[in-house]
């Protein structure tokens, strides 16, 4: 079990929210010139992962990956620089926001929905081959859970008892298609039985509930019993991507949920009311986090884009394609 407190997790959520807001500023100013998918409203899930994984463990994330990167310990500066397509980014500006790779921390992403779990399965198989007691976390959404790789990967993990943890962020919407309309079962966690896997559904707005369940899932997989499926329910606060007109969801419901069910506000209230935190010192810590993110944003904004003459580099390790 992790030793992190509720306050620790709350402050991590604040850092995640401020990070996403910095990215929003980059979209508004057209510094990020591609599409961007933000995880605002889903911070309690990422913050629930904290404390259970080391650099030996892998995490493979999706197109909506910033919060998972931060949870895996990817440093904020090169992460934001990559999202802003700068030469100081993790991938030198060749990857962009959907293609974040931090090899020493075993963190990677893919922009193709449904393609995370096969890659995570490879990390889990590496644990088997090398005899390490590490786990591999593959993240998917409720939409990606309907792609074939979900079944193929979990079936292999179940049959070989590989340490694969499947984290499903069920935010109810696969772009414009609602969960109930696209999924045969009432939950995704109940699919676990098909793969001889551990399975649980948890409230993804409740950071402590996520942390507790994720700890169980990781322990189960790490102990060699096989894969685990953790479904965390949440709500996508913004459009699928920044700029999505988002006319397909009932606006009244969306506005009410963003107002009344914001995990950041829910968790802050718990920290103050149940945790007895001093509001003044908490506000100071929140401000310090905001300052940290602002400092990184300002520095990233000053950085250069990669040299255009490098556009043909890196296709092969040696020689050229033509």
């Amino acid at each position, binding site marked *: 079990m992790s030793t992190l407190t509720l306050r620790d997790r709350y402050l991590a959520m604040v850092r995640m929210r401020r990070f996403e807001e910095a990215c929003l500023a980059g979209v508004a100013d057209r510094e990020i010139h591609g599409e961007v998918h933000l995880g605002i409203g889903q911070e309690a899930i990422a913050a629930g992962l904290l404390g259970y994984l080391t650099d030996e463990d892998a995490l493979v994330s999706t197109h909506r990956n910033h919060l998972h990167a931060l949870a895996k310990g990817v440093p904020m500066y090169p992460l934001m620089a990559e999202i802003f397509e700068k030469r100081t980014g993790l991938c030198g500006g060749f990857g962009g926001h959907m293609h974040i*790779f931090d090899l020493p921390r075993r963190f990677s992403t893919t922009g193709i929905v449904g393609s995370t779990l096969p890659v995570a399965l490879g*990390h889990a198989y590496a644990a088997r081959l*090398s005899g390490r007691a590490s786990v591999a976390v593959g993240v998917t959404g409720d939409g990606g859970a309907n792609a074939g790789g979900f079944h193929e990967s979990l079936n292999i993990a179940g049959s070989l008892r590989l340490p694969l943890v499947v984290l499903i962020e069920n935010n109810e919407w696969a772009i414009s298609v609602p969960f109930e309309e696209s999924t045969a079962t009432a939950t995704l966690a109940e699919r676990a039985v098909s793969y001889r896997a551990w399975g649980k559904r948890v409230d993804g707005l409740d950071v402590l509930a996520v942390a507790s369940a994720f700890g169980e899932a990781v322990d189960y997989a790490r102990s060699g019993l096989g894969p685990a499926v953790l479904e965390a329910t949440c709500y996508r606060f913004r459009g699928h991507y920044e700029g999505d007109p988002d006319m397909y969801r009932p606006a009244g419901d969306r506005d009410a949920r963003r107002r009344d069910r914001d995990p950041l506000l829910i968790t802050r209230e718990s920290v103050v009311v149940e945790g007895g935190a001093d509001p003044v010192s908490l506000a100071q810590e929140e401000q310090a986090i905001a300052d940290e993110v602002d400092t990184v944003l300002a520095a990233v904004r000053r950085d250069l884009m990669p040299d255009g003459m490098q556009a043909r580099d890196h296709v092969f390790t040696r020689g050229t394609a033509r």
Partner: protein
Amino acid sequence: MSIASEAAVRNVNVSQCVAEAINLEMDRDASVVMLGEDIGRSGGVFGTTRGLQRQFGPDRVRDTPISEMAFTGMAVGLAMEGYRPIVEIMFVDFIGVCLEQVYNAAAKIPYMTGGAVKMPIVFKTAGGCIGSAAQHSQCLWGLFAHLPGMRIVVPSSPYDYKGMMAAAIDSDDPVVFIEHKGLLLRKAGSFAHGREVPRERYLAALDRAAVLRPGSDVTLVTLSLTVGESLAAAAVLADEGISVEVIDLRSVVPLDFDTICASVAKTGRLLVVDEDYLGFGLSGEIVTGAVERVGTSAVRHVLRHGVPDVPVPAALSLEQQIVPRQASIERAVRKLASRS
């Protein structure tokens, strides 16, 4: 062929050459692992992995379920962990169910990371016509070659099957290694070229074409099984007074335009023989690339002989009408050579 070199030809088939190469690489490098269907217990449906599981165990030679999307993605994860996976896609035609991890992940991750992450993966797969009709007869090297980030190699001789497989495993880049089903079970002694296969480990270059027969009238560029067919055709045509220079491409990506253009500059006539589909593919790429490099005044005549853009039919009478083989290659050369 001298008596001394005849003695050096071993009684092995091409599949055994491939298995030998993989065996030697797995033996010297513990990071080499294999994933695929029927590669372990059965040794591969064409025998290219025979004996490997018995020698290296079921973890390093993993018989997978019929889950290509998962096990191609596994190779990507394994590569990020420092392994050198070999993935077998039993028939190249099956790539449709798992191209995603091949072209969006393995092929692009080195570029998308600015060179920070290598993907030393070999995708080995069998193509080519042997009478198996539309869904088990394709070559598809042009399909892979269109997508950036993969080396595409297509050996034609026993020597290259072994040496290029070793080099593919040794490469830090993703390599698609396309075998021809019509060659895999042939004995080394039945080949006209590259029939001597050393027992020990060796690497054959992945990115160079080879001039197998010098000639002065026509440059014939081809690959895989049609290399042998073209050599046989060239021998017949020599008796008719037509001198054909036969180039074995060996590599589709990258294409060795130095070798192609040196020949075309000499002959002025370029024929591409390709068992893959004609449209939007390798033959058009070679002709265009050669013309761009040596100019229209040097390339006086070009011709493409490939599979017209139809699926491969079942009946032999139909298949013979569309798949390039010795007789049709001879006809194509005569047609090109007659142009002044």
